[in-house]
């Protein structure tokens, strides 16, 4: 067997080994040195670990067991120091437990024996280390870098109980670190030496807008600020001094000011090193038996700081070393990135400022909403793009940018889609080997395979199967397009930013048009805004929107409704229906139960079942029995079939429970009576709990109200425990039941107005950000709360129980089953 030694067990090292194993399983005897004591993890998700949205354990890609399974000897916690090219061995020294893995002078374990690994080939993948600009006093407690799991742990640990933190560096990682620190409840200040944030990815204008957004999230930003000194009192950081003589009080500091390739081992072994370890197109160093890839490399004069180039390098290196294709060549990478900061939508690729006389620069700005889009077109190709505030177009632009494809004649289509609704770029038309997820290097072929053979039916499932979409998340739109193409889900909008596929307008534009033209029916919208083409895939979404916009005035064309909403019941696999009467807060009476039982007997209901929503489902009812069933039940509709307010579950609360501190049942009944049946972009399931033990699972509901000591209520929004699991975010704490009703109403109305069709609150919340939402709904930063309150009141007033249609059907044949046609009726008439 050929002996292969890999130095560095990060994203590049582990990836290239995977690629080699794919091509030549069993051909290599592999030994790996990793300075970190772990298996391989996804470094780009460290931002999530720091901000608490993922646990460190969730970001491992190759746990230690993987190495064993593949017969790989992993020396974890061992730093390779030199390649003895005479004796053809790689020499490693175990590191001290507390050593900083990437430090140039990481301390070796005293007295531990050196490890020698003989090789035929070596691959160096040592990555990069954070760059520390000259700052007096950086070495010492309270000052951190941000590169490894250990760093995250150290930062989070130290932040406990501190009040203020400063981040030196306003680039991609600095901002992610700052956002992460915010979740540790410290005040955060970002210090940037340049005149703007994210100098490498943004132009001046977008840099300034981003600064406003970041400030709006509660972080302070100082630009033109060069940090020169860290001042401590004892071993506590107290202050930072800046070059201009000013200073800032702080309790800790994280430095994130760029990276530098780790090259010591190459230098020590006599390989050519410049900015990085110099490699040719086959990823060979100056010694043809020694290869290198990743951030430690300099290729054609360029060094990289993102993962995308690694996938390309790993493919070439694996092709060359296994002989699969000895002439494979890596030719360099084009780069695009996305800021992974919750509440900030930002993507950038290529150049940020025009360089050439002939460059065409297209800009769209809407400062009030923080939207800025810029495109630099050169020779009909994208040379660069910036999307701030709205990034739906990012995945399409990125594909076109990377592939160097020609852009449409009307450049605006790149931002807003074409007015005819034709997708600019169909994921289904991309070649099989097109890379969809640039963060994890996942091709279209792998995603299609997951959809077709592994039964992955949602973006989340595809992510779980392939890792696509689990990095910066910007490819999720393309993954969804592939799902649409291969599974044909309706409701998913292929042109993404349109509210519905058949009307080429974003929600805000659509709403404005509908309002200004006074369009009150779905056919009127098609007539005026879609050239008269009545797209069936858009009808249902438009109906829902119109009903929200014109409470009580909407011209309700029933053909625009989904069958469930035509007959107010949920269609089943055999064409029968289910009936779920409303049981407010899960509290029923003997009388109601008896009526339900009588109905079940009278209509021979095949199944009577308690639902997960604290009520009772009668399943298998024939369409023409529906009116009779409702009349006999004498209970209102539970709306278990539509995109609207569904239920408000409750625990027992103060009525009987010995822990209850708030009347959860009374609260839930009030909520359910007030908001029953209110339409929304997607369904809303609520719950109230009488104390923080949360027996009704209020923390994982679209809205949850939890009673706490002192008669107060905490209101959580955006929770989920269905296809997605997400803990709701605390929106605010209020003192009275009336305030709960008011806040819930405000949130619902805001979601109704700004949610995308079929966007559950858990996605809505991630898009808007809870801090933003709190400003708008609690602090009334936009001055719209009074209007929201009035609108929801109007919707509540316009509510009618749809099961009243049992008395008087809304239209002919509403509840009719198939009709027998008699061939006898055929008239033979030949004149």
């Amino acid at each position, binding site marked *: 067997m050929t002996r292969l030694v890999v130095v560095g067990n990060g994203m590049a090292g582990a990836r290239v080994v995977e690629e080699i194993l794919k091509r030549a399983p069993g051909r290599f005897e592999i030994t790996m040195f990793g300075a970190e004591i772990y298996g391989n993890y996804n470094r780009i998700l460290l931002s999530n670990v720091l901000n608490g949205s993922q646990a460190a354990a969730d970001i491992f890609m190759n746990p230690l067991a993987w190495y064993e399974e593949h017969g790989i000897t992993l020396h974890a916690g061992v730093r390779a120091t030199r390649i003895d090219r005479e004796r053809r061995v790689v020499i490693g020294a175990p590191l001290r437990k507390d050593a900083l893995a990437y430090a140039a002078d990481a301390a070796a374990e005293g007295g531990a024996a050196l490890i020698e690994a003989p090789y035929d080939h070596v691959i160096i993948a040592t990555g990069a280390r954070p760059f520390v600009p000259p700052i007096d006093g950086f070495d010492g407690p309270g000052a951190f870098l941000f590169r490894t799991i250990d760093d995250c742990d150290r930062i989070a640990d130290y932040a406990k109980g501190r009040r203020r933190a400063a981040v030196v560096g306003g680039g991609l990682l600095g901002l992610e670190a700052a956002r992460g620190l915010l979740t540790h409840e410290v005040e955060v200040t970002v210090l940037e030496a340049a005149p703007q944030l994210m100098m490498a990815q943004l132009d001046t204008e977008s840099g300034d807008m981003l600064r406003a957004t970041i400030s709006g999230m509660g972080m302070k930003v100082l630009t033109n600020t060069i940090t020169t000194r860290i001042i401590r009192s004892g071993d506590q950081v107290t202050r930072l001094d800046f070059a201009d003589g000013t200073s800032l009080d702080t309790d800790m500091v994280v430095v994130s000011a760029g990276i530098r390739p780790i090259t010591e081992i190459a230098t020590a072994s006599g390989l050519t090193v410049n900015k990085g370890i110099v490699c040719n197109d086959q990823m060979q160093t100056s010694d043809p038996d020694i290869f290198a890839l990743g951030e430690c490399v300099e290729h054609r004069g360029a060094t990289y700081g993102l993962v995308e180039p690694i996938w390309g390098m790993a493919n070439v290196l694996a092709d060359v070393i296994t002989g699969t294709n000895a002439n494979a060549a890596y030719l360099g990478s084009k780069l695009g990135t996305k800021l992974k900061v919750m509440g900030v939508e930002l993507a950038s690729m290529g150049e940020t400022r025009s360089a050439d006389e002939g460059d065409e620069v297209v800009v769209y700005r809407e400062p009030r909403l923080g939207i800025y889009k810029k495109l630099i077109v050169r020779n009909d190709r994208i040379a660069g793009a910036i999307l701030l505030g709205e990034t739906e177009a990012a995945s399409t632009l990125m594909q076109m940018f990377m592939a160097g494809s020609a852009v449409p004649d009307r450049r605006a289509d790149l931002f807003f889609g074409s007015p005819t609704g034709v997708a600019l770029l169909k994921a289904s038309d991309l070649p099989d080997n097109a890379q969809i997820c640039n963060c994890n290097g996942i091709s279209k072929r792998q995603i299609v395979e997951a959809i077709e053979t592994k039964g992955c039916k949602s973006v989340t499932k595809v992510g779980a199967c392939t890792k696509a979409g689990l990095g910066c998340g910007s490819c999720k739109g393309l993954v969804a397009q592939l799902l649409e193409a291969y599974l044909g889900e309706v409701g998913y909008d292929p042109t993404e930013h349109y509210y519905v596929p058949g009307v080429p307008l974003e929600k805000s534009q659509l709403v404005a048009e509908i309002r200004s033209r006074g369009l009150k029916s779905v056919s009127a919208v098609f007539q005026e805004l879609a050239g008269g083409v009545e797209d*069936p895939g858009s009808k249902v979404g438009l109906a829902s929107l119109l009903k929200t916009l014109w409470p009580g005035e909407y011209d309700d064309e029933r053909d625009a409704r989904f069958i469930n909403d035509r007959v107010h019941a949920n269609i089943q696999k055999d064409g029968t229906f289910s009936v779920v009467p409303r049981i407010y807060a899960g509290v029923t009476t003997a009388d109601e139960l008896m009526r339900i039982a009588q109905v079940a007997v009278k209509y021979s209901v095949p199944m009577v079942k308690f639902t997960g929503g604290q009520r009772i489902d009668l399943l298998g009812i024939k369409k023409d029995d529906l009116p009779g069933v409702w009349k006999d039940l004498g209970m209102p509709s539970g709306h278990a079939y539509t995109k609207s307010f569904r239920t408000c579950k409750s625990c027992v609360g103060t009525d009987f429970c010995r822990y209850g501190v708030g009347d959860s049942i009374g609260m839930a009944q009030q909520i359910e009576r007030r908001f029953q049946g209110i339409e929304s972009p997607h369904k809303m399931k609520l719950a109230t709990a009488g104390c923080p033990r949360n027996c009704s699972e209020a923390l994982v509901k679209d809205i949850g109200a939890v009673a706490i000591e002192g008669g107060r209520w905490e209101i959580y929004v955006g929770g989920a425990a269905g296809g997605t699991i997400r803990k709701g975010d605390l929106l605010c704490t209020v003192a009275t039941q009336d305030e709960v009703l008011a806040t819930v109403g405000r949130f619902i109305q805001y979601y109704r107005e700004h949610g995308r069709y079929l966007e559950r609150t858990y996605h809505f919340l991630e898009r808007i950000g809870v801090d933003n939402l709190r400003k708008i709904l609690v602090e009334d930063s936009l001055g719209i709360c009074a209007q929201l309150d009035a609108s929801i009141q109007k919707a509540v007033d316009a509510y009618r129980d749809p099961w009243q249609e049992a008395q008087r059907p809304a239209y002919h044949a509403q509840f009719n089953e198939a009709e027998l046609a008699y061939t006898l009726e055929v008239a033979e008439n030949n004149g």
Partner: protein
Amino acid sequence: MVETIETSMVNLGSVSRIPLGQGRCYVVGAEEIAVFRQRDGRLFATQNRCPHRQGPLSEGVMGAGQLICPLHSHKFDLQDGAGAEHGECLMVYGVEERKGEILLRMNSGRKAC
């Protein structure tokens, strides 16, 4: 005026029995036929059961000559029955309106796949 109605034609009664923009299912002999009345007045007729998992197509949402099955949203062209999913298509029948009545031509059934 001379009218010709062929023997294979079935009169399904007044068009107003199908709500505008919706479908309705008729049982003709042993066949379940879905007849759709588009908002612009055009009529379409197809087999009623979806080739995917027998969803009742007459309950689907339609428009612009297209139909979406109510169960799993597979899409079909009402004109020729072609389905958006590989290997799925519908039997379509000739249907027309005469003097406000729906006339279905049962022997005209054809299938695109």
